[in-house]
């Protein structure tokens, strides 16, 4: 029987390959995800650990809590006098100080060189030849006073040459420095979109406004001194607000945020891999069922010759197993290609990731193979069980068909039950209060899987009417071929439903994503329109979201024509034991913002004073705050202050620029040494005019990382970031659509094969090859449209549920996009039909007629 099963696979090469493709793609997504994230992880780790490779202990400023990158707050720096004391310690062989921060290089076009959200790292290089310096000189010299070294990839991308002058913007206005050298970072071939600029210490201290200050001291111990001893010695001389860690520990600390980002990215991408595999399992199950139905007589003959049911079961499962193994192996390696593709995809949307070559971990191999094989086996179970129910007598009966499943009559109730259970799971995940994130995910994931299964089973009932309706245009366009296509698609509702269901899943998710995105956009738009009352321009970073140095808005304030500038500072602080986002505003904001005050009045914005604060309604509720309640804040530099609530506002659905707690800019600046603005809003005499715009642009020339935008432009800028994320989501979901496309191809090929004699007859009585192709194509399109119709509808339902729960998104149906999805699914149908239609049209009429 084993040999028989294997021979069966070989005998049905085409079918086996087509079925296997679905698994290959699913497994490829999983292995590709692992390869991608492992590679990024690897590259980041090399960066973080190589940076510290020369040092044993690192001394740094100590913040009161873990800071989030890009939050606008950095760890406090410390007095450079500490360096001498550290160097004087007996077991210290060498020690160097460093300052660092964000520093943008200014490109030839006068704009800051920023690649997406990647950091622009600026730092001092104490001595080029020092063991602490992880950089290698590619050409030129290490930087001296008023000089800068630039990383090779930025230099080549932006045509930066040795000896030229280049603008550098850190905390103040742009400064011109001479490019003294081009450097590269150790072994990592690309550090992603990050830019590097190195200065000598005094220049760096000036750029980062840290005169006489240091951010870090790298220490190397004398030969033979254990790190712990060195650490203890150093800790003896540390003043308050500083800390010492072994360089390993410091590297781990440095990489924490990246690690959590990568782990998020991994889970996120695996989610899409899961979807592709889930869709793949539908395709496999469907293909196997069709194949098994077509082999009814073969199974019956085997039974007649004495094969037991168990043997039949084994032979079918064995076939699936062999196919699963081969497909998973292929998928594993296809994943390497996919990882490459994903790197380019992320790069294409301006999200360049560091790359150090592809990493294939053992875990990737194990998981990919296991998942692929398991999914295939599970998908083969139902068809295999059906095969065992073929009675021996079917061998001698004309047109033997598979017996109906014993459970056939329970199908409708079962489908309804599954769907109901699924929705119950979704609703529980969404609305049951006080669930942990894990529980919510479990309920929602389980619910979604059940809903998809349930709807797939239910759709058997919908195929008839849907095919009738959606096939109507086919009958008008395709004549007899169209009518036959419509009849064919209704002929085996089970098969059409399974085929369409695979596409349904992908389209439901695409629809869900597009509705959520439309909701986010429209609620964001609404929020900006609500809050942004009469400011004329907003000043933001070029990338629209990183904080910008206050120097920019100070310059803007002095620009002719500017009436008032309102600055929104952004940072982090501890309140009630939790790290929260905080913001600062200054009195002019009262003239420009419109907030919905549930307690207090609009005057609050202008009268926060030294110790006033306002909070949003939800935060007030969760901490039981009302006017006059104290809010204790601990800042990164370990200073503490008690603020009093002066107002509570209700943010619009789309959110607000404010953190949980907002204080006055002056209070903010007391605790944050180098404050940064998230946005500055500008009121100008004469409003939005070309002259005013030109005046702002002139000022901002000195701050190339800042730009001015009108309200409409501001909204568009903020939304553009969302659309790149959206594009990534669509591409990832497209993978599962491709899997379902293979499903349609597979079904059509099997169907053509099954209807060989019928097609022969049609050709004999006058159907041209074109008409045959058209018939198959229309059937394919009808199947795809059925999947699209159910999928889009289900996507809408899921989106409505989700939005009902999430309070920062309003429901807004992107009709245009939904129409595009429907049209796209027509194309999926057309593409899927190309190969099967050609095969059908090429059938030799005579052979087809004699075919049994």
């Amino acid at each position: 029987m084993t040999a028989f099963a294997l021979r069966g696979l070989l005998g049905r090469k085409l079918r086996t390959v087509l079925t296997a493709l679905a698994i290959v793609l699913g497994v490829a997504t999983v292995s590709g995800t692992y390869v991608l994230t492992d590679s990024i992880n690897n590259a980041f780790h090399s960066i973080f650990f190589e940076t510290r490779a020369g040092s044993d202990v690192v001394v740094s400023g100590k913040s009161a809590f873990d800071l989030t990158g890009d939050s606008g707050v950095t760890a406090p720096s410390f007095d450079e006098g500490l360096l001498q004391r550290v160097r004087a310690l007996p077991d210290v062989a060498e020690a160097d100080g460093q300052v660092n921060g964000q520093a943008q290089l200014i490109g030839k076009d006068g704009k800051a060189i920023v690649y997406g959200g990647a950091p622009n790292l600026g730092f001092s290089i104490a001595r080029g030849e020092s063991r602490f310096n992880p950089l290698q000189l590619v050409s030129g010299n290490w930087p001296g006073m008023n000089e800068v070294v630039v990383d090779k990839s930025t230099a080549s991308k932006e045509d930066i040459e040795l000896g030229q002058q280049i603008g550098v913007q850190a905390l103040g206005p742009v400064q011109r420095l001479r490019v003294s050298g081009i450097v590269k970072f150790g072994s990592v071939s690309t550090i992603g979109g990050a830019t590097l600029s190195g200065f000598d210490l005094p220049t760096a201290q000036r750029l980062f406004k840290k005169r006489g200050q240091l951010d870090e001291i790298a220490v190397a111990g004398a030969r033979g001194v254990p790190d712990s001893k060195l650490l203890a010695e150093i800790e003896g001389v540390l003043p308050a607000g500083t800390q010492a860690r072994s360089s390993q520990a410091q590297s781990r600390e440095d990489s924490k945020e990246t690690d959590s980002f990568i782990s998020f990215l991994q889970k996120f991408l695996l989610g899409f891999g899961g979807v592709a595999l889930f869709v793949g399992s539908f395709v496999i199950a469907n293909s196997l069922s069709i194949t098994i139905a077509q082999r009814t007589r073969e199974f019956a003959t085997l039974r007649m010759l004495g094969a037991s049911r168990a043997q039949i079961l084994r032979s079918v499962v064995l076939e699936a197993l062999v196919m699963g193994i081969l497909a998973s192996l292929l998928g594993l390696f296809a994943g390497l290609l996919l990882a490459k593709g994903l790197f380019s995809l992320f790069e294409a949307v301006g999200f360049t990731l560091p790359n150090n070559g592809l990493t294939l971990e053992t875990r990737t191999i194990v998981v990919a193979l296991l998942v692929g094989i398991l999914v295939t086996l599970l998908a083969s179970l139902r068809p295999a069980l059906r095969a065992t129910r073929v009675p021996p007598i079917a061998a001698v009966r004309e047109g033997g068909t598979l017996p109906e499943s014993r459970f056939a009559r329970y199908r409708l109730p079962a489908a309804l039950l599954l769907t109901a259970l699924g929705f119950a799971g979704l609703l529980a995940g969404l609305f049951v209060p006080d669930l942990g994130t894990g529980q919510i995910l479990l309920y929602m994931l389980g619910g979604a899987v059940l809903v998809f299964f349930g709807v797939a089973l239910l759709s058997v009932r919908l195929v008839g009417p849907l095919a009738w309706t959606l096939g109507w245009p086919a009958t008008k366009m395709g004549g007899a071929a169209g009518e036959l296509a419509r009849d064919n698609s209704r002929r085996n509702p089970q098969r059409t439903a399974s085929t369409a269901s695979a596409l349904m899943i992908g389209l439901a998710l695409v629809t869900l994503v597009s509705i959520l995105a439309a909701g986010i956009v429209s609620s964001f738009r609404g929020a900006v329109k609500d809050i942004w009352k009469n400011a004329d321009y907003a000043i933001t970073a070029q990338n629209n979201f990183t904080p910008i140095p206050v120097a920019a808005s100070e310059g803007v304030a002095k620009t002719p024509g500017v009436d008032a500038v309102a600055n929104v500072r952004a940072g982090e602080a501890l309140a009630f034991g939790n790290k929260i986002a905080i913001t600062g505003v200054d009195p002019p904001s009262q003239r420009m913002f419109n907030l919905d005050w549930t307690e207090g009045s609009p005057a609050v914005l202008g009268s926060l004073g030294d110790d006033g604060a306002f909070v949003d309604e939800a935060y007030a509720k969760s901490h039981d705050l009302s006017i006059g309640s104290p809010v204790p804040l601990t800042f990164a530099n370990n200073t503490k202050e008690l603020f009093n609530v002066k107002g509570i506002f209700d943010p619009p659905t789309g959110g607000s620029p404010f953190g949980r707690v907002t204080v006055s800019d002056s209070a903010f600046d007391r605790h944050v040494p180098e404050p940064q603005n998230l946005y500055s809003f500008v009121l100008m005499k004469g409003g939005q005019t070309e002259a005013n715009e030109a005046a702002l642009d002139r000022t901002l020339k000195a701050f190339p990382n800042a730009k001015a935008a009108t309200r409409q432009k501001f909204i568009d800028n903020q939304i553009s970031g969302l659309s790149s994320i959206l594009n990534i989501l669509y591409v990832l979901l497209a993978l599962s659509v491709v899997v379902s496309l293979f499903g349609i191809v597979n079904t059509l090929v099997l169907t053509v094969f099954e209807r060989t004699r019928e097609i022969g007859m049609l050709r004999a009585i006058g159907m041209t090859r074109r008409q045959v192709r058209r018939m198959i194509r229309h059937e394919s399109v009808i199947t795809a449209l059925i999947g699209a119709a159910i999928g889009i509808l289900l996507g809408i339902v899921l989106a409505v549920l989700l939005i009902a729960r999430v309070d920062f998104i309003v429901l807004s149906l992107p009709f245009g996009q939904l129409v595009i999805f429907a049209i796209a699914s027509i194309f999926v149908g057309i593409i899927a039909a190309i190969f099967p239609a050609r095969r059908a049209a090429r059938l030799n009429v005579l052979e087809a007629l004699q075919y049994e």
Partner: protein
Amino acid sequence: MGEHMSETATTQPPPQTGEDRPVVVAASALTRRYGEGDTAVDALRGVSLDVHRGQLTAVMGPSGSGKSTLMHILAGLDRPTTGEVTIAGTGLSHLSDTDLTKLRRKHIGFVFQFFNLLPMLNAEENVVLPLSIAGEKPDKAWVDNLLEQVGLSQRRHHKPSELSGGQQQRVAIGRALVNRPTIIFADEPTGNLDSRTSGEILELLERSVRELDQTIVMVTHEARAAAIADRVLFLDDGLIVREAHDLSAREIVTAMEELGDT
């Protein structure tokens, strides 16, 4: 023996059954070779024949005699190695697949052993299928009349699965007649039916010729089926070895036995 038979055929008196009427299908010197070299098989070795309008021709012969090949070539489903087939004045040898298909649409009807109906269409839809494919509107009166003729008026809305074998073959005959083709090819039309039903189907075919002036070429190995024919062509080893007119079933059996078919 073959020579003897063809001599007998040529010494027959001139036929009375419409050979004065126009020739609708003509075949000259057809040969058909399958394969090449040592393994080549000659299915036809030089067959010429004319089919006249309104004639019911039966082609008989033992299995492997080439009768199916002959029919396939006459119907334009297969191409001869040499020789030419002309249907309604059009030579088939130079037609493209599409032109050939269109010629089949217009001039040829088929009746198959296994009916070959579309399971999702009802009887009437199956009958008008050739017209639908050709993009023509069926004439309602004609279709009604046709369904009446083939005895399916009461079952026009039944699906094939709801019809008996005989009824299914009636649908197939209706389908062959619907576009009033120049010629109908019937391939073992009773091969899959019991004897009572076979009789009904043969009677229907005969009536199509006599009453609707159809022309039919029928391949069969059943003497009883061939007995309704105006003329019977006996094929053996790729050649027409005998042509006879208005034979009785008994005479046909004898002739076949002489050909060595049991």
